[in-house]
C-alpha cells in the first residue's frame, strides 16, 4: 500500500521538477533575502533619481519660453511650433515683449526684427529662432509680393537632403547615442558580475557544508548546477527589468520619454537577449570552476580568470564607444566572450551589419553551449572532491 502510494508520489517527480526546485530555492533564499531586497530598492531608487535628473535641472519640460510681437509674429509662431521645444506667447507690441523679457516671463522675444534677451540665448535656440525668422520673413515677403498661401507653401516645401554614407559598415549612424551605449555596457557588466560570483559562492557553500552529498542522492549534477544558474538568472532578470521599468517609467512621468533617442525600447529588449546568452556562458563556467575548491576563501582564485575576462569585456566596450567603427570594435563585438557586452554596446552607438550581429550571436551561443558542457563536466567530476584546490586538467581526467 505504502509502496504504491510512494510509487505514485515519486513518478510525478520529473527531472524538470528537480531543476525547478533547485532554482526555486535559490530565488527564495537569495532573491528574497533581506540584503538582495534592500540592494534592489536602493538600485531602483538611484535609477529613478538618475532618470528624473534631466527634468529636475532642465525645468519647465525643457521648453523655451519665447515672446513674439509685430507683423511676423503669426508666421514665426507657426514655424516655432513646427520645430517644437518652444512655449510661445504672442504680445500686442514690441514694448510688451521687451518688458516680458525684463520680467523673466519669457527667456527671449522676437519683435520688429530684433531678438531681445537678458544675456543671450543658447546656440541651438539661437539657430532655431534664426531659422524660424528666415522662414517667417520669406513667407511674409512672398505674401506681400502677392502669392497665394498655396503658392507660398509650394515654394517653401524643400526636399530634405538624402544622406548617403559611403562607409556604411559600422558607420556612426545608429539611432542611439553614446550615453545609451555607456548605460548598456555598465548594466551588462553589473548584471553579469554579481550573479556569476553568487553562483560560484553557492557552489562552494554546498561543497564546504558537505550538503552536496545528500543533494546528489536525489538530484543529478546538471540539475543542481542548472537550477542554480536559472535561479540566479531569474533574480538578475527581475532586478534588470525593475531597473529598466523604473527608468522608463520615471522618464515617461517626467515627460522625458519622447526625448529619448528612437529605438531605446528595442535596444533594451535586444540587450536582455545578449545578457541571457552571456549569462549562460559565464554562469555555468562559474559553477564549474567554483566546484574546484572546497573553501569559500579559495573561490577568489579560481574565479579570477572569469572576472578578468568580464572586466576586459567591459573595458573593451567602453573603449569601443569611442571608436565604434574601428576594426578593434568589430573584432571585439564578434569574438566571445567579449562580444557579450561589446555587441549590444556597439549596436547602441553604431549601425552594425546584420551578418555581424548574427555571427556574433551564433558564436556567443556556441561558446555558451561549450561552457555549459565544460562547466557541468567540471562540476560533476569535482563537486564531491574535498581537499585542496583542484586543477581543471586534473578534474577533467577524473572519472565522475
Amino acid at each position, binding site marked *: 500500500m505504502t509502496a504504491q502510494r510512494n510509487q505514485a*508520489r515519486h513518478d510525478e517527480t520529473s527531472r524538470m521538477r528537480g531543476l525547478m526546485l533547485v532554482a526555486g530555492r535559490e530565488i527564495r533564499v537569495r532573491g528574497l533575502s533581506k540584503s538582495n531586497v534592500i540592494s534592489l530598492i536602493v538600485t531602483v531608487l538611484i535609477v529613478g533619481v538618475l532618470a528624473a535628473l534631466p527634468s529636475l535641472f532642465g525645468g519647465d519640460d525643457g521648453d523655451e519660453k519665447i515672446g513674439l510681437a509685430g507683423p511676423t509674429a503669426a508666421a514665426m509662431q507657426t514655424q516655432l511650433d513646427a520645430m517644437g521645444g518652444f512655449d510661445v506667447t504672442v504680445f500686442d507690441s514690441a514694448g510688451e515683449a521687451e518688458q516680458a523679457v525684463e520680467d523673466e516671463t519669457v527667456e527671449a522675444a522676437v519683435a520688429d526684427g530684433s531678438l531681445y534677451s537678458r544675456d543671450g540665448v543658447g546656440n541651438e535656440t539661437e539657430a532655431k529662432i534664426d531659422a524660424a525668422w528666415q522662414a517667417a520673413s520669406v513667407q511674409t515677403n512672398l505674401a506681400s509680393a502677392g502669392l497665394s498661401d498655396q503658392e507660398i507653401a509650394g515654394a517653401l516645401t524643400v526636399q530634405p537632403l538624402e544622406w548617403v554614407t559611403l562607409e556604411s559598415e559600422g558607420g556612426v549612424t545608429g539611432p542611439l547615442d553614446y550615453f545609451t551605449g555607456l548605460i548598456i555596457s555598465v548594466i551588462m557588466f553589473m548584471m553579469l558580475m554579481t550573479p556569476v560570483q553568487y553562483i560560484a559562492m553557492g557552489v562552494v557553500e*554546498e561543497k564546504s557544508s558537505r550538503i552536496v*552529498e545528500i543533494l546528489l542522492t536525489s538530484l543529478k549534477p546538471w540539475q543542481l548546477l542548472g537550477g542554480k544558474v536559472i535561479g540566479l538568472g531569474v533574480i538578475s532578470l527581475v532586478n534588470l527589468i525593475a531597473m529598466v521599468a523604473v527608468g522608463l517609467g520615471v522618464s515617461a512621468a517626467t515627460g522625458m520619454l519622447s526625448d529619448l533617442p528612437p529605438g531605446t525600447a528595442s535596444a533594451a529588449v535586444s540587450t536582455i537577449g545578449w545578457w541571457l546568452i552571456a549569462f549562460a556562458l559565464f554562469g555555468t563556467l562559474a559553477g564549474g570552476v567554483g566546484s574546484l575548491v572546497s573553501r569559500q576563501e579559495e573561490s577568489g582564485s579560481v574565479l579570477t580568470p572569469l572576472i578578468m575576462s568580464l572586466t576586459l569585456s567591459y573595458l573593451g566596450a567602453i573603449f569601443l564607444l569611442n571608436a565604434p567603427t574601428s576594426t578593434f570594435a568589430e573584432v571585439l563585438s564578434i569574438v566571445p566572450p567579449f562580444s557579450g557586452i561589446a555587441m549590444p554596446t556597439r549596436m547602441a552607438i553604431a549601425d552594425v551589419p546584420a551578418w555581424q550581429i548574427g555571427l556574433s550571436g551564433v558564436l556567443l551561443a556556441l561558446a555558451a553551449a561549450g561552457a555549459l558542457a565544460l562547466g557541468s563536466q567540471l562540476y560533476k567530476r569535482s563537486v564531491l572532491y574535498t581537499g585542496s584546490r583542484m586543477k581543471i586538467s586534473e578534474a577533467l581526467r577524473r572519472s565522475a
Partner: protein
Amino acid sequence: MLEIKDLHKRFGDTLALDGVSLSAAPGEVVGFVGANGAGKTTTMRIAMGVLAADSGQIVYDGAPLGVEQRRRFGYMPSERGLYPKMKTGEQVAYFGELHGMSKTEARRSAGELLEQLNLTDRAGDFVQDLSLGNQQRVQLAVSLVHDPEVLILDEPFSGLDPIAVDVMGAALRDRAAAGAPVIFSSHQLDLIERLCDSVSIIGNGKIIAAGGVEELKAKEVKQLRVSVETDEDLTGRLPGTVTRDGDDYLVEDSPDDQEVLRIAAAAGRITRFAYDQPTIAEIFREAVTR
C-alpha cells in the same frame, strides 16, 4: 531486498573496495562495522549513487537500482551538511520535495519530525544559529522527511545527544518494522549489538565476517562459566582446561559439559552455568586482527 554485489573501487593506487558484498532483507537492520578507512563510506556512497563503482552492482528487489528508486532511499552521509543560511523548517521540507513529495506533504512531514525532535520553536531560525546538537537533529529530520523505503546511514549516531540517539534508534526500528531494509555503520558497537539483526565486518576493502548477530556470537562461543557456592577447589576436578575468573570457573575444551554440571552440583549450589558469548566488540576485534 537491497543487495550490494561484488563492489570494486580504486582511488589512484589505493584499492578501496575489493569485492564487497552486503545485503539487507526487508525489515532487517544490518550493522556495518569496520575500522577507519576500511571502506564503509565508499560502499555506502556507491550504494547511494554519489560515487561510481569500478565494477559490481547494486540490486534492489531483484533489479539494478535506478535513480527514481534511489530517491526513495533515506541517506545520511558521514560528513553532515545543511544549508547554513536557510530556515530549519523550510530546509527539511525542501528535502522532502527533492525526494518527490508535494509541497503540502513535505511541510506536514517536516512539521511532524521537528515536533518529535523538539525543534518546532526553532523552525523559523537559520540552521547556522542552532547549536551543533540541534543541527544534528535537523540532519536526522532531513534523512527521514520523505518516509524512506530504504535507509542507508553512515555513522548516524556520531555526535548525537542521548535523546537524539533514542529518536534515531527508534526511527531505525520503526522503518525496519514497516518492512524497510536498513543499513547503518557505527563505531558504537553496543548500539550495533542492540539494534541490529545482522552485522557485516569490513577490513581493508573486504568483508571479513558477516551474519546474524546471534549466529556470529554462537560461532565465537568461548568458554563455559560456572559459579558454585562451595569452599572446595574444583579446578583440578572439572574436565577440560579450567581457569578462575574471580570466584567463577572458566572451562574450555571440555569433552563433556554434563560431566562438569554433575561435579559442580555435587560440590554445592550452582548459581550460574552458561557459555560465555562474546560481544560484537570482541568479535570485531578478533576479526580484524585475524
